[in-house]
Structure formats: C-alpha cells, structure tokens
C-alpha cells in the first residue's frame, strides 16, 4: 500500500462529499445514490480501495428477502461488540449507494473511518460488489423470485452468483441458509478453502402444509426431480430432500430451535450449534421469516468471534429498519408498516397479519422502477388469505385498482374493498377506521412506503422521513 495520497481517490471522495452536502441542502431524497454515482465516475475503484483499508474487513449480505434486516441486525451486534461499523442503510444497496456510504464515512485521504463494514447488496449488484470488496464473510439469505422485469429470472441470477462465488479468495467464510436448495447448490460451487457455514431452522410448529403457488426452485439441482420436504417453513425454504436420494439439506452448523412466534410482537428461539453452548434470542421483529434474519445475523457474529451475550443483548433491543415492520403513531392509533415487494415476502407478511389481532388493513401498490413496473406479482401472492379478513380493507397507490381487482378475485366481497387513490388520504382513513389506542396495518410497496413516510412526516407522525420511526 502506498503512503502517498491517492489523488484520484481523494478527488472522488471530495466530489462525493460535496454532492452529498448539496443534496442535503436541497432537501433531496436522502442523497444515498447520487454522491456515490458521481464519485465512481471519478474513481471506479473507490469501493475496493476503501474496503481494502478496513482493519477488520468487510461482510457482504445478499438475498432476495431480509437482507436489509439481517445487515442492520449484524451492524448493531458488531456495534454492541465495540466496533465502529460502516453500513449502507435505507435500502441503498446498489454499487452507487455503497460508494456513497463509504465516501461519507471516510477521510479525504481515503481512510475508511470504520473497523469493519457490513454491506447489503442488491441481487444484481452482488457479483460486482463481491469482486470489488473481496469480503471476509458473505451472508446469503435466500433467493426468491423478485421483480422479474429488473433482475430477470431466478435461474439467471443464480448463474451469475455462482460465477461470483467460484472466484472467492481462500479463507472467505460463506454463511448461507441451507433451507434454500438453490443456495446449497451455489455453496457447492465455492472453491476449496472457502469456509462453509450452513444454517437453517430446526423442527418447529409453524410449517406450511404445502408449497405455495409462488414457491421457486422446486426441482433438484442434481437430477431435476421435484424436491420434497420433511418440513416446509417459508416459500421454498425448509428441510428439503430429493426423493431420488441424490440430494438433501446438508447438516446444519447452526439451527434455530424452540421457535415461538408472538404475533405482531416478536419471537423467541434458541441458536443451537453443533459444538458450542446453545443460547436464547428474543426479538421484537415478528414472523417466521425474521427468525431466518436473526439467525443469519447471530451465526455471522458468532463466526466473527462475538460472544453469545452480546448477540442476544443487541437483538433484544433491535428495531426493524425503515418500513420493515415499523410502528408509527397517527391520530392516537398504532400503525404498523410492513413492506411488501414480491410474492414470498408478501405471503409471509399476510401470514403475520392474519395471525395477529384483526385490524383495519391498507395495501398501497405503486409501479415505479424501484417497485418493478410489472404488477403481475400480485397474482402470485396468496391474497386469498384475506378472503374472510374480519376488518376493513382499503387499497391505494398508483395501481390501487389492480390491487382492488386482485382482492375481488381472491374472494373478498367487492363492497368490503375501499379505494383511496392518494396515499396520504388512505393513511388518515385507515387510522380513523381503527378505534383509539388500537392497531391498523399498512402494507406498501417500496416507493409507496416512501410516499407513506412523506405523508406521515407531513402529518407530524414521523420526525424524519429517512430515519427509522421508533426509538428504543
């Protein structure tokens, strides 16, 4: 490493910092993308150069569902362990968002200003980010069908990941959800010298009776036969095996056992390890899918040498990031916001909503680029779960009527569906449908969630549009 300042890097960082201040002064949306975009124009190697200077290296978190929650959990655990952590938040998980996060925190001379980085990346950006960052640990959550118009089909995403993983340097740890057969096949492609850490769920009481319509990756990656499950947990995730006997979920290095879901309030489970003492986790982040996130973060932290006490302590106080099960007070009612963006994630949110205390429900559907232009995914999601929903349902957003039609064909009586096109009006209406001090649920797509947060900010319910609403 040269001791001379890297002039190109310094120029890029100065540009990024200047652009960031400008976006803040203009009050533009968070400024998470543009500074990194211009900085990478000046120095395309920016991310790699800064990552190489992190004393404890970088961790890359990827997957279709839960990567933001997992990355934030991990960042909080590492912070609790006394480390200074660089984390790209607020869903800015493309290369430019990651460059912005690095540029903001580092000095002009190119010192990253953190001990360790926890980098969340988008599925499409993953290969490029891994090549640039050369992470110490990679955490893979799952691969589900998501926004086909943006990412292409699942198989093509998996093929690109496989190439990226085949180029990992020796000693890299690959922490992956072994309940996902696709990820197991990818882990097989990692070179010798990669440390494989498979995790998954132990036996539990919340299994699905059969594969949902939206389930992906149902064929054996070795022989093509349809896979079967000893226990099915979320989407196509579970204790899987091929009936021809050539393939099955590998033995788990870490398993979540004693799983108990506490409705919308959270969950508890035990992290069981083949060699070490088991430890208990309590989290306020609800739903079976969040057990995977909390487990993935715990396993990664333990792999990095963090004690189980620190892991459990950090997760006990963890608050879900930005619209992923977020609680906001409006007009004396508790609104719970839960992002929906693809069939499997939305199915899990619907499972959660229909198992919690019934409350007025608002679905906000947009079709901007960040949501995916194609709203076909609404038809792969099992809104049939709402056919007998005992509380009022309303719809909003640019594609409010698509959502209304989807509910009608799911069996919700037409007269029980109200359409309120403007998201701000819909939020007020759903709050007023709830009695004082009780709940209402809001399920928005990504940009609808941003619009909802803007509206809640205007209504005085949210102080900062871009920060998580809750304080511990």
């Amino acid at each position, binding site marked *: 490493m040269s001791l001379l300042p890297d002039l190109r890097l310094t120029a890029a960082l100065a540009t990024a910092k200047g652009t960031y201040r400008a976006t803040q002064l203009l009050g533009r949306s968070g400024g998470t993308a543009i500074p990194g975009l211009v900085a990478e124009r000046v120095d395309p190697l920016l991310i790699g150069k800064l990552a190489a200077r992190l004393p404890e290296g970088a961790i890359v978190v990827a997957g279709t569902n839960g990567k933001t929650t997992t990355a934030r959990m991990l960042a909080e655990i590492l912070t609790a362990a006394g480390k200074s952590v660089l984390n790209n938040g607020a869903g800015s998980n493309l290369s430019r968002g990651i460059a912005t996060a690095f540029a903001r925190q580092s000095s002009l001379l190119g010192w990253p200003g953190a001990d360790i980085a926890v980098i969340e990346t988008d599925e499409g950006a993953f290969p490029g980010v891994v090549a640039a960052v050369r992470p110490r640990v990679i955490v893979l959550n799952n691969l589900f*069908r998501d926004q*086909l*118009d943006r990412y*292409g*089909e*699942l*198989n093509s995403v998996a093929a690109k990941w496989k190439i990226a993983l085949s180029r990992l340097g020796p000693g890299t740890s690959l922490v992956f959800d072994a309940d996902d057969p696709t990820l197991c096949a990818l882990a097989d492609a990692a070179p010798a010298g990669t440390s494989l850490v498979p995790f998954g769920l132990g036996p539990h009481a919340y299994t699905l009776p059969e*594969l949902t*319509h*939206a389930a992906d990756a*149902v*064929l054996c990656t070795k022989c*093509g036969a*349809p896979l079967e499950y000893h226990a099915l947990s979320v989407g196509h995730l579970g204790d899987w095996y091929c009936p021809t006997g050539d393939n099955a979920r590998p033995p788990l290095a870490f398993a979540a056992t004693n799983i108990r879901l506490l409705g919308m309030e959270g969950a508890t489970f035990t992290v069981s390890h083949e060699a070490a003492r088991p430890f208990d986790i309590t989290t306020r982040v609800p739903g079976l899918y969040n057990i995977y996130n909390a487990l993935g973060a715990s396993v990664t932290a333990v792999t990095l040498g963090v004690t189980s006490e620190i892991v459990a302590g950090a997760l006990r106080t963890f608050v879900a990031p930005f619209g992923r099960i977020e609680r906001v007070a409006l007009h004396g009612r508790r609104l719970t916001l839960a992002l929906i963006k693809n069939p499997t994630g939305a199915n899990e949110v619907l499972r959660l909503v229909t198992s919690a205390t019934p409350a007025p429900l608002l679905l906000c559907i947009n*079709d901007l680029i960040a949501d995916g*232009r*194609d*709203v*076909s*995914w*609404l*038809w*792969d999601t099992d809104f049939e779960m709402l056919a007998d929903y005992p509380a009022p349902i309303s719809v909003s957003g*640019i*594609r*409010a*009527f*698509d959502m*209304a*039609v*989807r509910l*009608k*064909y*799911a*069996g919700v009586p*037409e007269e029980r*569906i109200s*359409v309120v096109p403007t998201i701000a009006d819909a939020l007020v209406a759903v709050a007023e449908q709830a009695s004082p001090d009780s709940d209402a649920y809001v399920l928005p797509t990504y940009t609808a969630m941003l619009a909802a947060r803007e509206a809640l900010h205007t209504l005085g319910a949210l102080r900062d549009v871009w920060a998580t609403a809750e304080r511990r």
Partner: protein
Amino acid sequence: MTNYSLRITWLYPRLMNIYGDRGNVRALEQRCRWRGIAADIARVGIGDELTAGETDIYFFGGGQDREQVAVAADLRGPTGEAIRRDMAADVVALTVCGGYQLFGHYYRPYETEDLPGIGIFDAWSDAGPDRFIGNVLSETEWGTLVGFENHSGRTFLGEGTRPFGRVVVGHGNNGQDGTEGAMTRNAFGCYLHGSLLPKNPAFADHLIGLALRRKYGPDAMLLPLDDTMEGEAHAAAAHRAKQTR
C-alpha cells in the same frame, strides 16, 4: 336454467407459474362461479395423464428456461397428443409467453438445441439478443387489451395463423411487424402477463362464451357481471402503459 359446468385444464401449473399468470385461471374460475357456472380446475403436471375430450378451456402460462425444457420434453409424449386432438375439436385455449411459444413449431435458444412445440399455431420463436420488457397495449377484436411483456423470444407467424392483436404500445411478437400473439380456431396465444384476463374481462368472457357454446350449443348465454372495478384497473393500466413507454 341449464346447469352449466366447465372443465379448465391448467397445464404445468408448478413449472410454468411465473409472472402471475395464475390470475387467468382465477379469472375464468371466478367469472364462471359468479354466474352459477360450475368450474373445476384440473392441474396437469409432468408425467400426469391427460385425456382428450374432457377439457373445455386450457390454460398454459410462462415459465423459466430450465422448466420450459422439461415441459417441452413432456409435451412430446401423450399429453401433447391429447392437446392436439382437443385443439382439432375446437376446444378453447389461452397460452401466454412460454406456453404460447410451445404451442408453436419450436423455440430456438441461442446455444442449446431447439425446443420442439406442438404446432397448434403456425408460428416459431427465436431467442433474441435482449428482452422486451414493459407495459403493452394490444388492439384486438375484443377491444384494447392491457398487459405486461417480458420475453427474449421473437415469434413469427406463418400463413396458417392470424395475429391476435396489433401493438399500440410495446414490442409484441417480434418488435418488427407490429403483431401481438396468435390465434387459430379457438386457441389464443400472446405475451401478455398482468395477469391478462382479470383486467380484460370482455376477452375473459369471450373465452368462457366460446367454451359454453361449444359444449351446450349456440343458445348458451353469459349473464352480465358488474365490471366497474376491472374497468378502472384497465384504465389505470392503459394510462401507465402510455406514460411508461
């Protein structure tokens, strides 16, 4: 009133299940049910037995490339033969994207060998260099249909098959000749996801009407339904199509 009933056969629902195409089956089923027409859904997967003469409406949706290879192989067996016999007997069919391609002569990928189709449509598809992705408006005999295309295959029609529609917005079959989809006898093919039928209820009813008249004679009638909500969704989708492409 006669007790009408229709059998809807859903081809390869587990493998050809992406892009929300199951909304078409849901739309046929509900629009029958709301009129008191019994609709039963038969799901036919790889290796399952399909008997010709039992189906009133086929639905065949889109899938990923890997799944499409397995389906094409299965169609070379008795299932493909049964479908061909039903199509010659004017059974109604709606095919979308991958299903549409396999109802043609073949799909030709870039590197691997051709996937043979069952040749209902005089049509063939070649892999293109990029994907056509976005909202579509297609002008048809049943009005302007709204949908969403996402395909790399370029489909070309021979003389024995008419285009289903003409694109007003979007690329359609091949991005060159302005055609969208294909139709032969009572079989229809297109690249329209969305799902297609829920937001285009007049065409959904055309398929149900064709199937009823084929089974119960020319006097079989469809009661009207209140499609206000579907009409609003159609209008919103048409508006977005013009805004986004």
